[in-house]
């Protein structure tokens, strides 16, 4: 097991990036339909705690995954109802859901804190692929959920850019009035996207409690939901770029961890306070947002034109 340090770090980057990737993919779906979902953080937490409890009760981690999907989907449904049907303010609704999700997950998980997960997702080596030098180690010696995230990237990419449904979805996010007049069901499309977005956020949360940690701790997402929202902008609403972005953020996360673990070998970095190292992903988020927003503002690309705007057919 004498892999180069880079390979080890990249391999952990994939694991650390996976919860971000699930959440970011979900947010891409929602935002492509024109609904901004700032409830990701709350949805991840509710997903994490539901997945955890369901696994404790049933002893099967797949039951946990289903519970997380359902819980995230429910949260998405609330957001869709408020922002699509009631045409409420999407920012307020999203923030409220994050606060609600934080409180709800803490309440539900209170009596279970610290209990070990009976059926943790364990790494499964993919035959053949894992033999690829370096890449095999980085991408194909993980647990089943990581592989599931690869599949989701491909599926969502095909769905959004190569299918009729994706064209309609993007039309709804760009110009709902145009979509409506062409017979595309605007509300239904938005509901589907926001609910599936919530399910993916829930899954991202479950990854933390069932594979990454794996346990339940109050507020264990530690702002990953927010990073996912920022990631979507960084990725200009594109699944492949979201994958790259997730691993960069995951890598920075992992890097701090590795530097601490290396002790004396980390040279001058060993003197850096661990608090600073833990800050890295968040600092990176801010830097990326500054760079990307100034760039997109210049070129006016990416942002779905109707993002954040409720649609009302009879509005005059």
């Amino acid at each position, binding site marked *: 097991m004498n892999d180069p340090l880079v390979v080890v770090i990249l391999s952990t980057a994939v694991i650390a990036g996976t919860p971000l990737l699930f959440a970011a993919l979900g947010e891409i779906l929602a935002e492509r339909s024109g609904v901004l979902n700032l409830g990701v953080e709350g949805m991840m937490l509710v997903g994490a705690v539901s997945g955890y409890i369901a696994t404790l009760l049933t002893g099967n981690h797949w039951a946990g995954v289903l519970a997380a999907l359902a819980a995230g989907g429910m949260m998405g449904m609330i957001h869709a109802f408020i922002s699509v049907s009631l045409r409420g303010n999407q920012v307020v609704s999203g923030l409220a859901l994050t606060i609600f999700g934080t409180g709800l997950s803490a309440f539900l998980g209170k009596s279970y804190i610290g209990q070990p997960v009976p059926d943790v997702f364990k790494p499964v080596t993919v035959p053949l692929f894992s033999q690829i030098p370096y890449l095999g180690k980085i991408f194909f010696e993980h647990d089943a959920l990581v592989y599931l995230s690869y599949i989701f990237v491909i599926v969502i990419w095909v769905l959004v850019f190569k299918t*009729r449904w994706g064209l309609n979805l993007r039309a709804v996010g760009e110009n709902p009035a*145009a979509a409506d007049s062409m017979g*595309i069901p605007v509300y239904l499309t938005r509901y589907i996207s926001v609910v599936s977005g919530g399910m993916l956020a829930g899954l991202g949360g479950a990854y933390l409690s069932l594979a990454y940690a794996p346990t339940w701790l109050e507020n264990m997402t530690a702002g990953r939901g927010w990073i996912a929202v920022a990631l979507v902008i960084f990725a200009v609403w594109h699944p492949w770029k979201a994958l790259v972005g997730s691993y960069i953020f995951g890598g920075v996360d992992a890097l701090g961890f590795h530097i601490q673990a290396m002790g004396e070998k980390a040279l001058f970095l060993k003197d850096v306070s661990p608090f600073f190292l833990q800050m890295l992903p968040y600092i990176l988020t801010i830097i990326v947002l500054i760079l990307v927003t100034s760039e997109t503002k210049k070129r006016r690309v990416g942002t779905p034109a109707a993002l954040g705007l409720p649609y009302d057919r009879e509005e005059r």
Partner: protein
Amino acid sequence: MTTTLVKMVSITKRFPGVTANSGINFELRPGEIHALLGENGAGKSTLMNILTGLYMPDEGEIYIRGARVKLTSPRDAIEAGIGMVHQHFRLVQTFSVAENVIMGSGDQGFFLNMQEVEDKLARFSGEYGINVMPGSKIWQLSVGEQQRVEIVKMLYRGTDIMILDEPTAVLTPQESRELFATLRRMADMGKGIIVISHKIQEVLENADRITVLRDGRYVDTFSGKDTDSRKLTMAMVDRDISYGQNISSKPKDDFILCLKGLTVLGDRGQKALKSLDLNLRKGEILGIAGVAGNGQKELAEVIAGLREEAAGEIEVRGERFTGRSARRMIDAGISLIPEDRLGTGLVGSLNILENSILKKYRSGDISTGWFISWKRVREYAHRLVEKFDVKTTGVEAPVRLLSGGNLQKLLLAREISNDPDVIVAVYPVRGLDVGAIEFVRNTLLRQRENGKGIILISEELEELFMLSDRVAVMHEGEIMGILDREEIDLERVGRMMAGEREEGSHERTAVR
């Protein structure tokens, strides 16, 4: 084939506070161009939005090809073969032409094959003689081309009941003629075409039948051959219109505002004004003609100090005023009647009192030191409301509750009572009813008599020709030519709007 495509019987539609349609009848036959004529707010668009399934009528019946239907969504209407080109195009700017055409249709399988769609579309638009490039993105197209995309979109879906909402508002006279030729060709193929319009001349020249609406009610249906503009006007407005025609005084000789080689960047960083020269005299109305989006907005904004100059100079009363803030321009006596009354002009959720002093709050007769004297504001606002005949439920109501005409009156009241030297009016009558239009135009004429310089940006050529001392035509940020009142000619203006430059009719920049 049945003799009617569409029959709408006593349609009524109410919105909170207004009855937009009240017992309206309408009928469309295959092969005809049927104009729906009426002033703004007469209920034309509402009626057509009902026919396209966007609005549900409160009362009334709709028959398509003889069968009674209930159109509950745009999808129902599309399936019934009804399609509409809205005034504001329903196109996704970032999509290609082909993507816009197929979106929402069940034409493609689950996976898209854009190449196939583009080929099909190219063949298809050839058949109808409508030129579109299937692969280009919408934002790259001119307004006229975008309109063609909208038409192709409908044809592609097999629409045979085609509605166009004010289709010529954004076109040059030549482009309009081309559009009607296309429409005639489609009518000859047996389609029924409805054109919503408030332009009498255009309707007379192109429509087979004309249905007139007024105040949400059905007036009459005329045959295009047997009617004239006088009958139509009477049906539309029910009274004769008079403007303060007899323009007696001549503009003074001295310039009040000079733009020299002015270059300004638009929102996307493109050059919206290209080295533009323009002089405005005291007591002159200088009309700016041109298809919307050719730099008019930027011209107004740069004069008002809302946009920076990239090059060139602005002079007010001979003094250099380049690169000044909006406040400095206001103090210099420049007043802007902006295009969007409730965005740039007035603050919707503030009341009349607050809106009336937005440009005046610093002056001594309104405020004392840091504080505003609301008593004086109240007196002031009441004077404005009375003098300009603003109909309102009270000066304390948020102004967004005012109708378009009353908003514009309030805006005019505020701007003119500041006693400016230059007034820049951008589409000042857009969306107003006849009475308000008359009021706005007469107000501008009166200000001209008082020796103010007025820049009037308008899309209504008739209005420009009627009010202006000179008309400058803009195309892609440049002045194509300037015509004096006596030389104004629709044909020439139309050519210049399309980008043809007229040498010799330019601003003779005075060497001073």
